[in-house]
């Protein structure tokens, strides 16, 4: 089906999120949308999907103007969408989520869950997913949840499929498989709009590329264009895509983890006898497929989870049983993987968010009172130093784009003296410009002689930042290898192979 957007304009108050955007997607084409955080990609797709109503412009399917009153109409017209943020009901099973809105029913509207399950299995089999239809979605790792989202879209046999950052939480292998599926669908005639911040993927799969900046189309590009060129178009300036770092100057052991075991919410050892050391001036990256215990490992390191066995030493200090606050006071900086949930308070201002874990004493607080003079000064300094693009420190965090939100978290954590820095998925969903910046700051921390632990499912990031790489699989570390290890080897290790 041919999709045409003509002059789509969408305003939020006086802010123009989409400014007369034209876009044509031919049948069977994979069309990539590129743009910085907040450029307006998701807004445009939400208009197409009927979730937002456009202020101006038309949507045409096979040259027929469509009037969508809501997503229901768009779905009926053959549009399917995988949303950037999960649109799954956490307490429902996979099958329930997949059929929601399009439920197979028997008499009296009774749910036919058997045929729902069958449908999930069919699609899983067809595309090689391995998903239990009866699993509760919130119990699934994020990667699997993303697959459920994809199954949901596929289950409706969409003629136009929108994929908004579907690969943000997928491993390289999973991404490759997804791109294979996209190819297959396109060959079968489905038109696909594919949004991602990862230029490698765009180059690999897209037929055509449209770049959006500040709500307007800045131009078309070809997949054969260089990554640098694409990045420049997106950001409006030259971007350095690699990570530049000097050879590590190793200090003494900063973090020492011995036999750490963490029991998850069920009775599973989500972290299973993990041992490693990180020295000052070194970046240890923990690689692995999402859901293999990295999150829980990080949370145990910062005191959010109670280890059932093992020891965590920060220099000479035993922090195994310390509280989160004690660990923060001991100089551990932490970037959580889900910034909206764990890293920020959306309804707080930037200044308030910058002092989230610093409210217990100077310089941000004076006795029992916030030291507003200092706070404002420090906040302004951090905003400037970490290049947070905002009208000012009093802006609500939720009004920032994802990249800038992430910079606020990074600024908070790196804006003080650290003895250890732990970052979980530091650049997830962040645009290339911001990635460059965040990576620079991480390396600067390492070069200042701090031990750094990076947890990332992003192989490029892992190999770019790390001095050593630990690969986790099923709660265990299958090996700790040098940063120069090949992608293929790492990929095999992530599937459980030991070195």
């Amino acid at each position, binding site marked *: 089906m041919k999709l045409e957007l003509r002059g789509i304009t969408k305003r*939020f108050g006086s802010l123009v999120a989409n400014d007369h955007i034209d876009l044509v997607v031919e049948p069977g084409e994979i069309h990539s949308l590129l743009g910085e955080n907040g450029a307006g990609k998701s807004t445009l797709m*939400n208009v197409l999907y009927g*979730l*937002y109503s456009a202020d101006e412009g038309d949507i045409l399917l096979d040259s027929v103007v469509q009037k969508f009153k*809501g*997503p*229901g*109409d768009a*779905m*009926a017209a053959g549009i399917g*969408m995988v*949303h950037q943020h999960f*649109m*799954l*009901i*956490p*307490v*429902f099973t996979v099958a*329930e989520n997949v059929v*929601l*809105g399009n*439920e197979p*029913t028997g008499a*009296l*509207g*009774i*749910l036919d869950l058997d045929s729902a399950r069958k449908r999930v299995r069919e699609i899983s089999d067809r*595309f*090689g*997913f*391995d998903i239990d239809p009866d*699993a509760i979605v919130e*119990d*699934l*790792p994020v*990667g*699997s949840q993303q*697959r459920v989202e994809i199954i*949901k879209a596929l289950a409706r046999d969409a003629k136009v499929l929108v994929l908004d950052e579907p690969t943000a939480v997928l*491993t390289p*292998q*999973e991404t490759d*498989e*997804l791109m294979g599926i996209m190819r297959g669908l396109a060959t079968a005639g489905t038109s696909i709009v594919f949004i991602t911040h990862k230029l490698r993927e765009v180059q690999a799969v897209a037929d055509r590329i449209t770049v959006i900046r500040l709500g307007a189309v800045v131009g078309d590009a070809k997949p054969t264009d260089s990554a640098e060129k694409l990045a420049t178009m997106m950001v409006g300036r030259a971007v350095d895509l690699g990570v530049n770092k000097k050879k590590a100057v190793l200090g003494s052991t900063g973090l020492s983890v011995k036999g750490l075991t963490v029991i*998850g919410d*069920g*009775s*599973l*050892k989500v972290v*299973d006898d993990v041992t490693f050391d990180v020295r000052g001036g070194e970046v240890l990256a923990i690689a692995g*497929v*999402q*859901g*293999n*215990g990295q999150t829980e490992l990080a949370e145990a390191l910062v005191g959010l989870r109670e280890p*059932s066995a093992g020891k965590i030493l920060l220099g000479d200090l035993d922090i195994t049983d310390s509280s989160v606050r004690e660990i923060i006071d001991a100089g551990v900086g932490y970037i959580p993987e889900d910034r909206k949930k764990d890293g920020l308070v959306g309804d707080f201002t930037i200044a308030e968010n910058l002092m989230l874990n610093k409210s217990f004493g100077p310089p941000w607080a004076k006795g029992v009172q916030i030291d507003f003079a200092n706070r404002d000064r420090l906040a302004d300094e951090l905003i400037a130093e970490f290049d947070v693009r905002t009208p000012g420190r009093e802006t609500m965090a939720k009004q920032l784009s994802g990249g800038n939100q992430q910079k606020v978290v990074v600024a908070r954590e790196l804006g003080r003296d650290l003895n250890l820095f732990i970052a979980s998925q530091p650049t997830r969903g962040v645009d290339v410009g911001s990635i460059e910046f965040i990576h620079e700051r991480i390396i600067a921390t390492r070069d200042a002689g701090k031990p750094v632990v990076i947890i990332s499912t992003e192989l490029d990031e892992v190999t770019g930042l790390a001095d050593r790489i630990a690969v986790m699989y*099923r*709660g*265990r570390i299958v090996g700790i290898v040098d940063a120069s290890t090949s992608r293929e080897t790492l990929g095999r290790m992530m*599937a459980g192979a030991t070195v």
Partner: protein
Amino acid sequence: MSTASNDSFARVDARVSYKTPIVMAAFALVVGIAFGLFGKPEAVTFQWSNPEDFIHIPDFVVASNLVGMVVGVILLIIAALAFVRARAARTTPLWLNLIFGLFAVVALLGWLAAGNNVPFAFILGNAVVLAVPIALGAMGGIMSERVGVVNIAIEGQLLTGAFLAAVVGSLTDNLYFGLIAAMVGAALLSMVLASFAIVYLVDQIIVGVVLNVLILGITNFLYSQWLSADGQNSNFPGTFDIIPIPGLSSIPILGPALFESRITTYLTYLIIPALWFILFKTKLGLRARAVGEHPLAADTVGINVARTRFWWVTLGGVVAGLGGAALTIGSVGAFGRGMSGGQGFIALAVVILGRWHPFAAAAAALLFGFSIILRVWANQVSPGIPTDFITMVPYVVTLIAVVGFVGRVRAPAADGQPYIKG
């Protein structure tokens, strides 16, 4: 794609929790020692059924302290079972908890009634009748909160239903018209709640609180201006007939208590499982729950969030209105000023206590009804506890239930959140 499902991790022996067996053992000891060893030797008569019942089970006369001791031992055995399961890292099944609870109640009754009768059917029957308005109010609350609209106005809905049922029932001389008026009136009230909350995005708690105030004011006003002077015509509806259900009502013990009731009670029996069925087994329920958990996600699959919320809240009003009718034409007949007397708030607590689940909420409502009749009956058979403390029994029982056994509950994720479309 490769998989990383949960089962791939090494499994450990689950953390063994001895909370349940310990609580149980403590209870068992209290029963055995206080009710048994230090219990009173007077005889207690367990009246399982009334003499006129179809199948009459003869009274069971036994010494009060013997009941305490025997039950204490039984409870200890159950606690031991729970302990064995806990050691095997397994939780105590619900039915075992229930049996434990039932035996504990029997021991309590036996202890209180030393030298007296325990009219079993009477207690159970009254507990049910007292629970009906609360249960229906709670079902209305569940229907509203399951789609994400917090309903503080249950109190107002009960009052509306009670008022209209009595007045319309009296004026038309037909209780069924009263019943319908109650449901329609409370539904209209729900529509107000729904429109303000969904369309005008008013804080749902504010609307609820205000509606309660308004309804109390309006019913009081009408009562003063009209009903009090003309009670004979406008406020003397009588109550529905008690209809024994053939067969069921001859079941020993339970029959007379549960199946010799009014239509309001029977409707409650129907509504609770029906609501459960609709919520958890049908397309409508799936969609409703989706709206209450994640309205944006529901919207993205073509579910009309506002419409779903509106109708569920409205139908919730119908059910709560029925609960209001149960207060008057299902129980005492005439309407009185402010006669809901806080039962709407109890229903709100019951919604939460019942974890937004119809069966659990019904059980919580029954617990509450039981506590009321327990305090009435215990006050009679066992003088000595000051009136003011006896009055607290239902509330303390609820507190113990929530603190000791229910604990953390999880509301529908979008409960109370307005949904604003882009």
